[in-house]
């Protein structure tokens, strides 16, 4: 098994075995979506209109919460030292960890979307649109969030700082994710344009995220 495949496999194994596994992120997603009607009111028309936004916000917060463990666990038990000394470039290692994190934490959110769409009175097309945009956009959230996770790795209780650092960088993804969903649902605007921009944002994050995270980890080891 190659080095990166071994790393992805290990991270997914740990994510699934520890702390409720993938389901805890989905549970949080569900909780946030359930909270919204209590704040907004049970007006179905309003909820339908706000549906994509609520789902996106829930997914954003859910992926943010799991991010701060991304490097922290490896740092605390000394694995990070060995990872830096391996023969795999650190940038690729970071990318692999982000991929594993997305598979274990981000993808379940996408899978949970149809059920949550029911709660928000979204019809099949709308739900499909939101799920598709989440599929394209949650990788960007993970890969961008990885930068904050790497910067905050040596800080105990760095979770809040991580959120503060990462959220402004996530705003473009949020804007285009919701815009694409809305375009598919109501749209005078075509779905394709914001969706392609969303995909482009993800692709850009695949490059910037690992490089910035690797640099942060190297500088943070001292």
């Amino acid at each position: 098994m190659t080095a990166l495949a071994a790393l992805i496999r290990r991270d997914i194994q740990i994510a699934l075995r520890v702390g409720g596994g993938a389901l805890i992120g989905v549970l949080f997603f569900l909780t946030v979506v359930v909270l919204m009607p209590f704040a907004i009111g049970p007006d179905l028309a309003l909820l339908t209109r706000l549906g994509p936004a609520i789902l996106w916000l829930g997914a954003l917060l859910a992926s943010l919460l799991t991010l701060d463990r991304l490097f922290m666990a490896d740092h605390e038990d000394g694995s990070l030292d060995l990872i830096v000394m391996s023969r795999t470039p650190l940038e690729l290692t970071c990318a692999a960890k982000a991929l594993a994190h997305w598979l274990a934490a981000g993808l379940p959110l996408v899978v949970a979307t149809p059920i949550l769409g029911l709660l928000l009175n979204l019809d099949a097309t709308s739900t499909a649109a939101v799920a598709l945009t989440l599929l394209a956009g949650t990788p960007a959230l993970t890969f961008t969030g990885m930068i904050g996770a790497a910067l905050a790795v040596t800080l105990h209780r760095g979770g809040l700082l991580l959120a503060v650092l990462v959220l402004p960088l996530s705003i473009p993804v949020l804007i285009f994710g919701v815009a694409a969903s809305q375009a598919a649902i109501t749209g005078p605007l075509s779905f394709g344009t914001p969706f392609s921009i969303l995909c482009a944002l993800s692709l850009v994050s695949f490059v910037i995220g690992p490089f910035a995270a690797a640099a942060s980890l190297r500088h943070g080891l001292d």
Partner: protein
Amino acid sequence: MRLSGRGVRCVRSGREVFSGLDFEASSGEAVAVTGPNGAGKTSLLRLIAGLLTMADGSIDLEGGEAELTLPEQAHYLGHRDALKPALSVMENLCFWRNFLGGAAFDAAESLAAVGLDHALRLPAAYLSAGQRRRLSIARLLAVRRPIWLLDEPTSALDAAGQSLFATLMNDHLSRGGLIVAATHTPLGLAARELRIGGTA
């Protein structure tokens, strides 16, 4: 193969730990780094491992593989064991064997060599401190790298474990490997002493 350092200076958090340090180790040789707490034994090992940057001086490796950096040819056995409690003993070792890169050897045999073959499927969370240390040592056997950087390797090991490790270290030296170990206690092998920070 020769590992050497000239005029090495270490600064951590703005405080100078040591400066002007010279050292040398060749294939088949072991260097025992001694000194009081805080003198910089761990820092020296981390400098060689590339986990800390030097404020001054140089550390060079002659005779190693040309395309690889020094850290990529070294094992670092630090205070922490780099084990995941959620994974089994075998899974932990197989991961490092696959990930570190380099000549890989059979994981089960390495575990047997450190006396953990009865615990292959156990979650690493159930291991005692001494057993955890043995699992880390198994990593040194499962992936062969010429340089061993050991930080208090025998702490947490009982007498049997210590003599086992001494045997493993001697085997490594006789294969042409090189050891730099920070230690408070005698290692059980012939080693040159490198004293940092104050006299005995």
